[in-house]
């Protein structure tokens, strides 16, 4: 039942036509063209997912399929640096790569000072210069047959961020990737494709940041592939604060080699429909990874996190913390899967999903899922849905804090628990500001 084709090919006409004209107009190496063609083939086969598919049961993407499909061909030049100032992190000293509608804008970006062993550039430039890493990694990690969206993104591979670290290289500053949807006509589509390849024992911190300038509906379909080498240490933070009409579909696919460390954050406050797929595959022993997430939504928003911790090798640890705050008639979906493969003994996997409902009309669909095929493992998960702790509220009130303020305080504390795990201070500060405002809005509006 779950393998049924999602949508007849006839309905994909507009999308397929766009694929074709894109393929015809864009140059590239033969391998890249094959890759794109492969994306088209899979997209034709898979189409857009429907709610009949188990993984999309709560996430109805029909509005996206109805949206005019207008993949942007280049960065919109009308965007000015001033427009981007609200999205700058306070006291930021690191580099910033700006992508407008999914395409790199050199004018708005500030590249980092050249550093030995650290490449920070955009994908189009890297493709032009023929970086060997691209052919061996691009689209080798995020499968095109996973969903129609990643296949569609593959069909349109053109630009995005490309970060490469040679063995033992340590990026001096965190890297800010800002994906901007330009204001103006509705329904522009951005399909950035990011690739991060970290060599043995290297280290870097990357922030993926999605924002929109206008208020019109637009569609972001992003795929980020991260290859973490042996003993490397990568922190990846994703912050999505697009406008409330936007559609955001994104996949983060990380392959973690022996003894590596990976810290993933996903903070989602914007978009009418946001779907985040975060898949971590532990391909070596001794990996330690953390998945950390927060969603705070209201109105008619839908935010859906699907995470997978795939323990393919023994002696790995994964820790997952997801908090949700839901107001209005929003819906929060969390599907966290811990998959312990046959020989992955001594796995230590923990997962916590907690949700706070602020209104009668908000909904939570939480599915903490365990699939365990090895016997010597420690796996736990816990999920809660509910209100603020009565005792904590009472405690605050005995200390002279009015109930309304006590609620506010506890709600913020609930969010801070997640934000505090981010190690880049300016990002944390920015998030605290944005989240504070957002939470106030959610609490007020309810």
């Amino acid at each position, binding site marked *: 039942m779950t393998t049924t084709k999602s949508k007849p090919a006839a309905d994909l006409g507009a999308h397929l036509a766009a694929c074709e004209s894109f393929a015809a107009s864009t140059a590239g190496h033969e391998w890249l063209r094959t890759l794109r063609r492969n994306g088209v083939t899979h997209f034709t086969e898979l189409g857009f997912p429907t709610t009949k598919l188990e993984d999309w049961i709560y996430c109805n993407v029909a509005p996206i399929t109805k949206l005019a499909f207008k993949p942007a061909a280049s960065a919109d030049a009308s965007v000015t640096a001033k427009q981007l100032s609200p999205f700058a992190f306070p006291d930021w000293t690191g580099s910033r790569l700006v992508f407008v509608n999914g395409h790199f804008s050199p004018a708005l970006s500030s590249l980092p000072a050249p550093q030995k062993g650290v490449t920070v550039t955009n994908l189009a430039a890297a493709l032009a210069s023929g970086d060997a890493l691209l052919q061996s990694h691009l689209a080798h990690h995020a499968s095109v047959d996973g969903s129609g969206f990643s296949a569609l993104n593959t069909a349109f591979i053109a630009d995005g961020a490309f970060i490469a670290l040679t063995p033992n290289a340590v990026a001096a500053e965190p890297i800010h990737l800002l994906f901007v949807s330009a204001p103006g006509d509705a329904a522009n589509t951005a399909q950035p494709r990011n690739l991060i390849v970290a060599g043995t024992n290297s280290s870097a911190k990357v922030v993926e940041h999605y924002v929109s300038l206008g208020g019109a509906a637009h569609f972001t379909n992003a795929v980020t592939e991260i290859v973490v080498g042996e003993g490397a240490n990568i922190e990846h933070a994703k912050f999505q604060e697009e406008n409330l009409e936007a559609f955001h579909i994104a996949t983060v696919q990380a392959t973690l080699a022996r003894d590596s460390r990976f810290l993933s954050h996903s903070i989602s406050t914007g978009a009418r429909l946001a779907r985040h797929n975060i898949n971590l595959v532990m391909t070596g022993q001794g990996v330690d990874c953390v998945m950390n997430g927060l969603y705070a939504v209201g109105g008619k928003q839908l935010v859906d996190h699907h995470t997978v911790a795939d323990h393919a090798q023994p002696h790995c640890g994964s820790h997952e913390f997801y908090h949700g705050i839901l107001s209005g008639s929003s819906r929060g979906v969390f599907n966290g899967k811990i998959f312990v493969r046959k020989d992955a003994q001594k796995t230590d996997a923990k997962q916590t999903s907690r949700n706070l409902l602020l209104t009668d009309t908000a909904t939570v*669909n939480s599915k903490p899922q365990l699939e365990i095929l090895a016997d010597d493992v420690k796996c736990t998960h816990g999920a809660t849905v509910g209100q603020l702790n009565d005792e904590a509220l009472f405690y605050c009130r005995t200390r002279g804090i009015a109930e309304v303020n006590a609620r506010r305080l506890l709600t913020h504390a609930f969010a801070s628990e997640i934000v505090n795990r981010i190690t880049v201070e300016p990002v944390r500060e920015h998030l605290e500001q944005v989240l504070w405002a957002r939470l106030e809005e959610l609490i007020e509006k309810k």
Partner: protein
Amino acid sequence: MSESTNTIEEFVASDYKYGFVTNIESDTVPPGLSEDTIRFISAKKNEPAWLTEWRLKAFRYWQTLSEPKWPNLTYTQTDYQAISYYSAPKQKKTLNSLDEVDPELRKTFDKLGISLNEQKRLSGVAVDAVVDSVSVATTFKTELAKQGIIFSSFSEAVAHHPELVQKYLGSVVPHTDNFYAALNAAVFTDGSFCYIPKGVRCPMELSTYFRIEAANTGQFERTLIVADEGAYVSYLEGCTAPMRDENQLHAAVVELIAMESAQIKYSTVQNWYPGDKDGKGGIYNFVTKRGLCKGANSKISWTQVETGSAITWKYPSCILLGDNSQGEFYSVALTNNCQQADTGTKMIHIGKNTRSTIISKGISAGRGQNSYRGQVKVMKGATNARNFSQCDSLLLGDKCGAHTFPYIDVQNPTAQVEHEASTSKIGEDQIFYLNQRGIETQDAVNMIVNGFCKEVFRELPMEFAVEAQKLLGVSLDGSVG
């Protein structure tokens, strides 16, 4: 569809030429399923027209469905046209006492340790023994009748209390519910019916023993229990099945209805033939069980110990409709060798202040695959709903698997839903400790497993709890070493 229907009709028609297969022991309809088969079953059981119509409606709906693929199970699909849908043990017309029961059947019961006489005298349990679809003996009827309790086979209930059956049949599990429920509604042959009138506390534990006897006959039982206002009943269901090489299908439906302040406690010990070490044979168990807490302050409690069957697909659920109603689910599921279980529960909170508890213990050994699949759904109006779920898995050996698929859907901010799950194995230090106290490894494992399941066994009625503990031991035999 029309083409395949034609083939079916031809197939059935061609068999008709030779008449129905009637051997000495049982009265069996030739394999195959069509409207004619259903009419045959209905006619054979002297059913009223409305029931025949209901069966046909279900059958027509069933034809539009396909077998669900979502469970975490792998098995060869059943050919529904290769099953014989009716088989009744040969018996005398009416039975006034146990002495009239076929001595051959009595012997089988004795082998299973369910001597009706003993049951009657010693344990105070009324037994409605079902061998292949038709009830052969019902005990304690007079005693129950004094209290106004109706406890009989389904066919008898249809004959004597058609108004009650018609009112409640399919009201909790409609024929449109799922593939197996639709199939059951179309072809069910017998089962148990129980009605507890207002304010009556059933003085004894009611129980039914099921057995699958004739080869190639799927059992399609239907149980309907109605507890009227303030009534209480505890119902036991226990199953055993003899060795069989072919896979046998069992698609039962159980419906429970609890009116205001009524309580129903439903306990199951299922130990059907699980297949041999390589997974050959064994029972396919596709059961739909659901309870409706219709009135305020009602309570339904499911307790199950699932150690048998090659495939178990079973989700005893509670619809908490009445305010302050309660649902409980306690389960132990054990899979050894090649057994597969996909089981769990659904708690649907609709009324205010509804509460539910889920305790599920899964044990996997050998190459067994054990899945917990559960849903806790809190609807908009379910103010102050409360749920606590705990799903623990125990893995014995490195070839088995434990899976958890909990769905938590909450639409009310005052709800409090908690879910906990853990997976563990038996520690070498635990075994070592018991070994040095002179307890052999196999016994030590049994002891630890029983301790792991204690929370569930505590919920079982006394005799069942003892049986269940023994069962776990037997089922785990050879899983160590």
